[in-house]
């Protein structure tokens, strides 16, 4: 039995500590009694998270295989319920009330999907030129994906996509396979940028598929799908109403709407930038204290960090995340078992995706999607998800051999 990875644990505790501190500084000026404050609730969330993580660590690793299908089924049902009768929070039906607890089924669906996809792909490898190998994994993916998208919760739907891509990569795809696999989506996006980028993409797809000797039928299929999806998106774009177009453009580039969504991003950038190299000091952020960021303790917690602790603070936090991911993915090296590999890779990719998308959003690189920052953002369901991921990583590291 391997020893506990103290570097991993150290980074984890450092991140959680920093997170609680930031939630405290972002919400302490709300004049509630202390046990109603967000920072105290966040401590409770983590306490609950640790208990669950500990339980997970002590269970045998085989359990994940055993509960994969049943938990997947339950989460699909829960997602189905929430889409049809969910609690409406900020206009998006994402919550479900069960026995007085509010939770987001999409959070737990992530874990369930991760397990079931790992289980299937550990026994059945995929190949891009053998479409029947993609049928079952594709179905397993598309059902929760569509349900989450319908909530609507685009960002979580993208998390499912990321898990799927990483799993396909781990279970047989090569990088160029992945490239060809996502090329239709890329074609849609590139077609809005103009003819030159789009043409370059199509030429690239053609070049790759010919250079790596893909079968002819596959080359024809990929080229047809790519070109037609590009055209279709062009036509759709041109037939759209102005306000629909501007909504999409604003989503991609929030700066187009400096009073609305762009406002948060601009303020977030100003907050981070005004922190300078070493920050304004704990609790001293004027941007934060004036409470201008509507979601500062959830989605924009990184801005609070940047303002109060400057580049030094953001560097340390990103370094901690990097160490955490490095130690996490290294579990794959310990065991050749593909189920363990897929689980670990899926968890690491999910955490990585959350970190990058959230930080990129706060610095104005990506649309405001509402993906929280692991271990730092306030929020019960997400804290639990993250702690379950942590518990699974520790469990697989300690007991992955017995699988």
């Amino acid at each position, binding site marked *: 039995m391997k020893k506990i990875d103290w570097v991993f644990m150290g980074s984890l505790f450092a991140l959680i500590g920093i997170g609680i501190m930031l939630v405290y500084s972002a919400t302490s000026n709300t004049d509630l009694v202390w046990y109603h404050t967000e920072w105290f609730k966040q401590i409770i969330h983590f306490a609950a998270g640790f208990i669950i993580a500990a339980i997970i660590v002590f269970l045998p690793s085989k359990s994940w295989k055993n509960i994969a299908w049943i938990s997947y089924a339950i989460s699909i049902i829960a997602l189905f319920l929430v889409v049809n009768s969910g609690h409406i929070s900020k206009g998006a039906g994402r919550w479900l009330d069960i026995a007085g607890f509010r939770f987001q089924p999409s959070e737990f669906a992530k874990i369930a999907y991760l397990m079931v996809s790992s289980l299937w792909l550990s026994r059945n490898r995929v190949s891009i030129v053998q479409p029947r190998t993609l049928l079952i994994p594709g179905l397993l993916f598309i059902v929760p994906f569509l349900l989450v998208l319908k909530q609507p919760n685009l960002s979580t739907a993208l998390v499912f996509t990321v898990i799927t891509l990483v799993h396909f990569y781990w279970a047989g795809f090569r990088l160029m396979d992945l490239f060809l696999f996502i090329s239709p989506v890329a074609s849609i996006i590139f077609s809005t940028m103009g003819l030159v980028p789009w043409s370059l993409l199509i030429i690239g797809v053609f070049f790759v598929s010919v250079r790596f000797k893909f079968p002819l039928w596959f080359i024809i299929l990929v080229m047809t799908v790519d070109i037609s999806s590009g055209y279709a998106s062009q036509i759709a774009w041109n037939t759209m109403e102005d306000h629909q177009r501007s909504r999409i453009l604003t989503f991609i580039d929030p700066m187009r709407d400096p*009073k609305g969504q762009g*406002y948060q991003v601009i*303020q977030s950038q100003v907050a981070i930038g*005004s922190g300078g*190299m070493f920050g304004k000091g704990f609790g001293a952020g004027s941007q934060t204290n004036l409470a201008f960021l509507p979601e500062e303790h959830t989605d924009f917690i990184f801005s609070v960090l940047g303002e109060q602790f400057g580049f030094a603070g*953001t560097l340390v936090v990103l370094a901690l995340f990097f160490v955490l991911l490095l130690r996490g993915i290294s579990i794959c090296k310990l065991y050749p078992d593909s189920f363990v590999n897929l689980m670990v890779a899926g968890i690491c990719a999910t955490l990585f995706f959350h970190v990058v998308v959230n930080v990129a959003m706060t610095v104005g690189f990506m649309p405001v999607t509402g993906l929280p920052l692991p271990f730092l953002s306030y929020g019960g369901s997400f804290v639990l998800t993250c702690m379950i991921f942590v518990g699974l990583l520790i469990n697989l590291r300690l007991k992955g051999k017995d699988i």
Partner: protein
Amino acid sequence: MYSNFQQSEEDIRQEVNLKIFVFICVCIVAFSILLIRLLQLQYFEYENNLKRAEENRIRKVNIKANRGLILDRNGVVLVRNRPSYQISLMYSGFKNKEIRDSVFERLLKIKDSNGKRLLDSAMLSFSFERGRWQKFRFQRLIEDAAPEIVALFEEHSEELPGIEILVESRRDYPFGMYGAHVFGYTSEISEQELELPENAHYVMGDRIGKKGLELSYEQEFRGNNGLRFVEVNAMGREMGIVEGMPFIAPISGNSIVTTLDWRLQKVAENAIPEGLKGAIVALNPQNGEIYAMVSRPPLDPNIFSLEKRELHKAWASVALDTAKPLTNRAISGLYPPASVFKVITAAAGLEANTLSEYTRYKSCGGGLRFGNRYAKCWLARGHAVLNVVGALRESCDVFFYQAGLDMGSERIGDMGRRFGLGSKLGVDIPNERSGLLIDSASYEKWFEKKGWKWSAGEILNIAIGQGALLVTPLQQTVMVGTLAAGNGLYKPHFLKEIVSPEGELVRKIEPEKIGEGKVSERTRNIVLKGLYEVVNAPNGTGRRAIVPGVTVGGKTGSAENPHGDKTHAWFVAVAPLDKPEIAVGVVLENAGGGGAMAAPIAQKVLDAYFNPLTSTAVTE
């Protein structure tokens, strides 16, 4: 090669290592891009972002709710709101010291049309000093600035960064001083008031009702303040509201429809001769609705909206004025009830059967010897022998001395209490006083400190409404009106209806009976006969209250008092006598006899009430 399921362990290990390597590379690339971006924001663009963080701010702005209006019973707007301009300083509007100093100099030089400086340097330095500590708060330089001063500042706004003109809502009184004592006034909430738990929803700078109806119905008038977040630029100017931040629209306060009849109020206001002090109350004794209430000397409610220093001056002048213009004499002024009280003495005797309409006492020869005291009648030549109706008509003191001695002070006291004397009636404006209704039982308790002992002679004073007795004009009017109407004692009130800002009825106020206020029909008829003859008999004391077309009854009074040679003039009238719908009480301090001075004033009010088209008082 695409479906190689039979990989060796070494192959698998290599493949996994490659994938881990790719994952780590992706991590490094992504994190590096983020770090470069962070370095750009936090290092290369630091100065710029810091400046924006300091300049680019959100301000939470209270949106004050419109205060409810005060209307008369026919919908005439009596108190409304007007915009008021505040010249204010926002210290954060000064980019640097040079600008601050130049603004300071410019402000000092600003003069009004008379060439007088608007701001003095001591006050200005104080405001600037305070602004330095509260950079993002407005410091008021000129409160409620006149339009020409606002125009002056608007003209020079370019040269005066950091100086802004804020608009607030203040009370406006379209009828000037009329009704001022009833309406009361609003002023800025004080720090002590802010600390009270019931004022939790007020903020510094809010205006709150301080007296009169403004205080009584503050909760109705107030409404709910709104809230919005605005972005302000470096100069402290608002750039617009911020989307995605909470916006709470203000809810205007409710208006109140009063029982006041503004036509009568105006007549009453004009009826009191210039320079006299006193009060007028007109009300409906059948339900307690107050039609008009006047107190003199008048009070200008506009002084409470004045700029602070002017306000202090004006306030000092009214507060120190020995004529006490701040006092609402109709409810807080205490006067001996004088001969008007004789209706109580008469009623008490009639009810106790110590007196009947046939009772004849010793002839009045201008006075009555009681022990070693000679109590005079107001008419030196005397009234000879009168019955009770005649004694009321001619207000014969000697008759009531003897009636009082016959029945004893307790019966008089009981009768007074029955008609609301000696305690507060509960009118819905603050500072009502209870007066003093003394009989042998309460006398010694009341005057214990002074060591005064009740003596049988005291009853002579009480029987004619002098001595220790004190009433407010409101009590006096309610007393006579209730006795004449015979329908019970109703709480006098101003509130008729509460209406929402949209004009919908929120609440209607029902008359509140606070006492039986009744005597036997026989007693009432005798008293009514007395009241009738006071006004209508050839030798009645109140003949000047006659109103054509309606039977007026009334009672005069001339109160002896230590404040001057002349008596306080009292007159309380009720009409129509068969079914009273209005009672008018008038008191004029040190004005002389009630019949001569007060009765004509009551007459004007009654005339306006019953003959709105022909009344000279209305057309004036």
